[in-house]
């Protein structure tokens, strides 16, 4: 029988893999992968503010993960609004501005956290896949199911706005609605993954497997399956290494694996193209 913390870590790995595979692929296709970094830092700020509210003031209890989710969603919606018609260059500028804002809010909130609560903030920053509680796993499961269901239902709409937003609008689709929904789902996925692997590593884990899969896959569906499988492989491998070989943060190790495999895949793909030419 596995100890409960290992079981929770394995369940969280599966959940993170699913969101990294689905939302990660759409983030890369939409050209907003940097939104993941912004949403992760917004989540850090939101979780910290929730922590302060819960412990320092008389305001009713707000779980840090809910605070993280609210702040990340606010960041995604502000990005969608500022990005206007959804042109990639404008989205990048909007994401950069709100990434900086999120980071500033997170730093300001952290500076107000009393020292006895700093370990919880560090947990969110660096990830605590081996310290997840039953409640955490339950929240992550529900959030993952919501994200996967909505991405499945609106798969075509998201594909169309990634491929040609102006064309989709010209054919009568309510593109802004789907754009906001997609950005919100990417932000929600980021919060889910951040809770398990930390605000820093989440960027690598959500973009690198998706980018690797898109180098090889023949369709978006296959890219999602491949990115999910790769994420699961990295997370399980790093969990195994951290539990049996070296006492190292599994999330960080998974992030390193993801980045290295992406680099190798890219090199192989370029070499193959050169040989063909």
């Amino acid at each position, binding site marked *: 029988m596995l100890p409960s913390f290992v079981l929770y870590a394995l369940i969280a790995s599966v959940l993170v893999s699913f969101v990294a595979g689905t939302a990660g692929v759409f983030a890369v*296709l939409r*050209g907003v992968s940097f939104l993941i970094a912004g949403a992760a830092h917004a989540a850090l700020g939101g979780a910290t503010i929730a922590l302060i509210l819960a412990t320092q003031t008389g305001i009713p209890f707000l779980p840090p993960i809910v605070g993280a989710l609210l702040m990340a969603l606010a960041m995604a919606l502000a990005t969608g609004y500022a990005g206007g018609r959804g*042109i990639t260059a404008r989205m990048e500028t909007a994401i950069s501005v709100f990434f900086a804002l999120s980071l500033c809010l997170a730093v300001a909130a952290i500076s107000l956290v009393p020292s006895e609560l700093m370990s919880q903030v560090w947990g969110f920053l660096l990830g605590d896949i081996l310290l997840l509680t039953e409640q955490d796993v339950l929240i992550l499961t529900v959030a993952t199911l919501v994200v996967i269901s909505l991405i499945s*239902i*609106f798969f*075509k*709409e998201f*594909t*169309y706005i*990634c*491929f*040609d*937003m*102006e*064309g*989709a*609008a*010209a*054919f*009568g*689709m309510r593109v802004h609605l789907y754009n906001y929904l997609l950005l919100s789902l990417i932000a929600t996925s980021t919060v889910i993954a951040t809770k398990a692997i930390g605000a820093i590593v989440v960027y690598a884990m959500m973009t690198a497997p998706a980018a690797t899969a*898109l180098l090889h*896959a*023949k*369709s*978006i569906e*296959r*890219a999602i399956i491949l990115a999910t499988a790769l994420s699961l492989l990295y997370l399980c491998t790093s969990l195994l290494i951290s539990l049996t070989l070296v006492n190292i943060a599994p999330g960080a190790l998974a992030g390193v694996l993801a980045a290295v495999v992406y680099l190798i895949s890219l090199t192989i793909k370029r070499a193959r193209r050169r040989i063909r030419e």
Partner: protein
Amino acid sequence: MGIVVVKDLTVEYEGVIALEDVSLEVSEPSFTVVLGPNGAGKSTLLKTLIGFIRPVRGIVRVLGIDPTKEPYRVRKLVGYLPQREFIERDIPIKVRDVILFGLLARRPPPRVATVRDLEKVREVLKIVGLEELADKRFDELSGGQQQRVLIARALVSDPKLLLLDEPLSATDVKTQVSILELLRELVDERNVSVIMVTHDVSVAVEYSDYVALLNRRLLAFGKPGDVLTPSNLVKAYGEGLRMFLTKEGRVMFIADQHICDFCEYCRSREWRRRRGAT
């Protein structure tokens, strides 16, 4: 009433007047080319017709509908091809799915393709001469084939009007000719009206029924021979317009300030000599 009616149209785009007092009427079926230098308001005109931009003043009617009041009704009836730069070409998506996009995006969710839709896709692929490429990935096609697929996507819903924003950009002369012959065939044999924005004046001479020469204001509108006079071209492009003969024997008019990486002229020896290149 014409398929497109524009009267005293003034449009501001991001705080700048992009079109001023433009009036024109396009009757069906016809091939109209919108010409003018960069920043002349050509794309703005198309975006106004499809209801993306609300005019400051003036009247616009497309197929008898006011796009400022009922943009979604107009969009469901018109085929549109945006500029190349707005399309993400590295997405792993099949040609068939790109064309289905033109049908399913017009419907409410769930956007499920029917057998009839798939037949329609085959039909339009045949029209653009790419029926054997339905299962190919879009990003594996040449630039010219991609443009043809996007024209097929605009055609798949059987629109009476096609609005095409620079469909010839980044394609070689041979591909341009094949696209233009296809568009001419659509007008002559399928009664589709085409309004196309382009930089290439020779296209207007050889293929269009009408030319709208824009430079913020409508400088001239009518038959190519009446519009493309030296004085009108000077009004639109300035003094530096030159005539140029391509290898294929096509006449091209190029403005002195024109610089691009694609057209025959910019690649020519004459251009290289003038730039001082070896």
